């Protein structure tokens, strides 16, 4: 039955993806919810929350706020918070409640900027899309708003887009920075200044589909070229014997495609990539699969004739009868558990 899940908990939603992008940037992030979404986002989908303070707030909406559309109260409370906290910007992140009541984010942004003198962005997430959609919207809103000035290009500087704990299964960018000389990893270890200086990158590296839209914006605005690759993917499947074997890789599309290249180079007979998340046409090869329901995955495995499955171990419950090799490459957006391998 469409939409019915018997084995898997829902994956990280769009609002979690948006907050993951904004978390380290030094802004006031207001999640426009009644409280439960904030608990899910921070308490479950944001592993940095337990160790790093960030000005993330719930709007604390109540039924009458929603019924009467009392945006003015939200603005009052944001103004109050802005007077008490040193912040560079404000961001309002959507959830199902504003989605249902049809909140006008553009008006909300204008009201906030008029009242509290902070640049404000809004991300119209709904809680019904997946994390990468929200992350993509947040990157786009950020770079569109703050990366406006063309600066001299700094040779060797590489802007990294699409890296968040939900995508790269780590709470910091140390490993990425170690293998990509000159890397400036937006949203992980870098603040708003790096976003404002995005035009100085010699090129951009996109490590997950959530960074693609922003990379294209920066290409169109400043002429910054981008490449799509996950430089850490090879390490994730080290030691796996795939020679002559048929492999199914299930992950976010960039990591999946990078693993595919690695496995083919090591002699795999064939590698199919599947993803539960965004599937960009630019990165898709014939035979790649977009998954939606648990049954899609079960059928793919049952009919695909694969010898090896690569993906988050949570998925193996769905295909209990599979008698080949499974290789665990965790994805936080699926399991909510850090593998910390990237």
């Amino acid at each position, binding site marked *: *039955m469409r*939409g*019915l*899940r*018997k084995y898997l*908990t*829902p*994956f*990280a*939603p*769009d*609002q*979690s993806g948006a907050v993951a992008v904004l978390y380290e940037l030094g802004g006031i992030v*207001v*999640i426009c*919810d*009644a*409280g*439960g*979404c*904030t*608990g*899910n986002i*921070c*308490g*479950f*989908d944001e592993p940095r*929350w*337990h160790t790093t*303070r960030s*000005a*993330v*707030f*719930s*709007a*604390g*909406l*109540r*039924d009458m706020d*929603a*019924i009467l559309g009392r945006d003015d109260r939200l603005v009052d*409370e*944001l103004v*109050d*918070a802005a007077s*008490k*906290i*040193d912040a560079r910007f404000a961001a309002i992140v959507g*959830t*199902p*409640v504003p*989605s*249902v*009541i049809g909140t006008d984010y553009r008006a909300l942004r204008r009201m906030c900027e008029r009242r509290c003198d902070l640049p404000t962005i809004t991300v119209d997430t*709904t*809680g*019904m899309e*997946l994390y990468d959609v929200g992350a993509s919207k947040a990157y786009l809103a950020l770079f569109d708003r703050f990366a406006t000035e063309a600066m001299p290009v700094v040779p060797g500087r590489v802007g990294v887009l699409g890296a968040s704990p939900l995508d790269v299964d780590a709470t910091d960018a140390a490993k990425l920075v170690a293998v990509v000389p000159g890397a400036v990893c937006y949203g992980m270890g870098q603040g708003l200044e790096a976003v404002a200086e995005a035009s100085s990158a010699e090129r951009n590296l996109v490590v997950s589909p959530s960074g693609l839209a922003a990379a294209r914006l920066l290409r169109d605005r400043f002429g910054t070229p981008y490449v799509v690759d996950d430089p850490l993917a090879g390490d994730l499947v080290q030691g796996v014997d795939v020679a002559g074997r048929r492999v199914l890789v299930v992950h976010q599309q960039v990591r999946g495609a990078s693993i595919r290249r690695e496995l083919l180079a090591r002699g795999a007979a064939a590698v199919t990539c599947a993803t539960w998340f965004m599937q960009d046409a630019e990165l898709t090869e014939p035979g790649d699969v977009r998954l939606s329901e648990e049954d899609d995955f079960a059928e793919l495995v049952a009919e695909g004739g694969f010898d090896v499955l690569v993906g988050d171990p949570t998925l193996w419950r769905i295909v209990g009868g599979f008698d080949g090799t499974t290789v665990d490459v965790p994805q936080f957006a699926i*399991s*909510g558990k850090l593998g910390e391998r990237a």
Partner: protein
Amino acid sequence: MREARSFTAAELAERGVDNLPDELVSNRHLIYSSPATLAFNSPGAEGFGVKRAGLAIPGSVMLVVAPGCCGRNTSLISDLPGYRDRFFYLTMDETDIVTGRHLRKIPQAVEEVVACLSTSPSVVMICITCVDALLGTDMERVCRKAQERAGVPVRPCYMYALTREGRRPPMVHVRQSLYALLQPLPKRPTSVNLMGFFAPLVDDCELYRYLAALGVRRVREVSRCEDYDEFLQMAEANFNLVLHPEARFAAADLQERLRIPSIELTRLYQIDRIHSQYQALGQVLGTTFDDADDMAAAREALEGFRSRAGRASFAIGECMNGDAFELALALVREGFVVREVFGTLGGENFVFLRRLAQHSPDTRVYSNMEPTMIHYDAASSPVDVAVGKDAAWYHPEAVRLHWNVDVQPYGYAGVRRLYEALADAWDGREVAL
């Protein structure tokens, strides 16, 4: 330098409950999100929120009908013993919201869930969230349809965070929904229900003995019911003891529907007040409880901790088994110093704040949820001991006691165990409870 906003107990007592500063009223500011506020923002993430509470009935399963975001953290619960394979999801999309078609899918989804289980569930709980609160969904009607189709009881539970501060917030409603399954049975004078918690009282709680001495042979708690049939036997109770105010409405429903009267008791850590409460309960029941030994044991544990810690200073949080202000009052009345309370004041606990102000006017009161808590710095207010998961998070330098496990400390046994746990924590030993 920016600081977290706080108020002294004396200031607040003088202002009164109807004139609290905006910083201490949660609907007058944004809600800061830190690990100290997780219990507010996501009650289901720890302890018993709606999802876990909704599965209190043995053999039950839950179908969460909601946007994916609402079910995201449920795997935290699924990983707990006894909850694996008990959660299922029917995820909603925008078309569902516009057309309401998800409601038509629920009976089929319930049927498929029941069919995929090796044993038929006792009850299928349908958990719905803020979206359906706004849509005005009649979930009782949907549950009746699902029940007809699947052939098992189907009950709604409402995880409506939007109504958290309303008259019947989600944790009140879920109790009503569970106890609504009870059907009339002949009364047994020797049966009593303890209502309020979703986990049992500590095994050595004196209340069990006191009730036994009164001739009560069956003390039932939903968490101790072995199976659904035993749960249904709760309908035979002579009276209900309500141990948590969130069970008040459920008890009132049972009084009206099954003619089971109820008596409400308060969890306290002040030893003399516990004695008074038992005396009052005895009067209502026409007896006198001999509590001298239990009181002495509680006091002995207290002295055991005092002999180690002397006049220790405390920070008390609200993420623990008790009311932060009542526990703070209990401690200062015993001669300890309470520097800080992290809590939420309201009509029910303001009485403790007033008395706290008399004994310790300089105790500072913070709201975990207030925006300036991002500036909180434990170095400006060091303490020896932090009680509560939130206070422990603020005070990594202190002796820390979370005091928030599922099994509920209560009465003299609760006090005794608290001071024993504090002594263990003070000594650096692992704390059992």
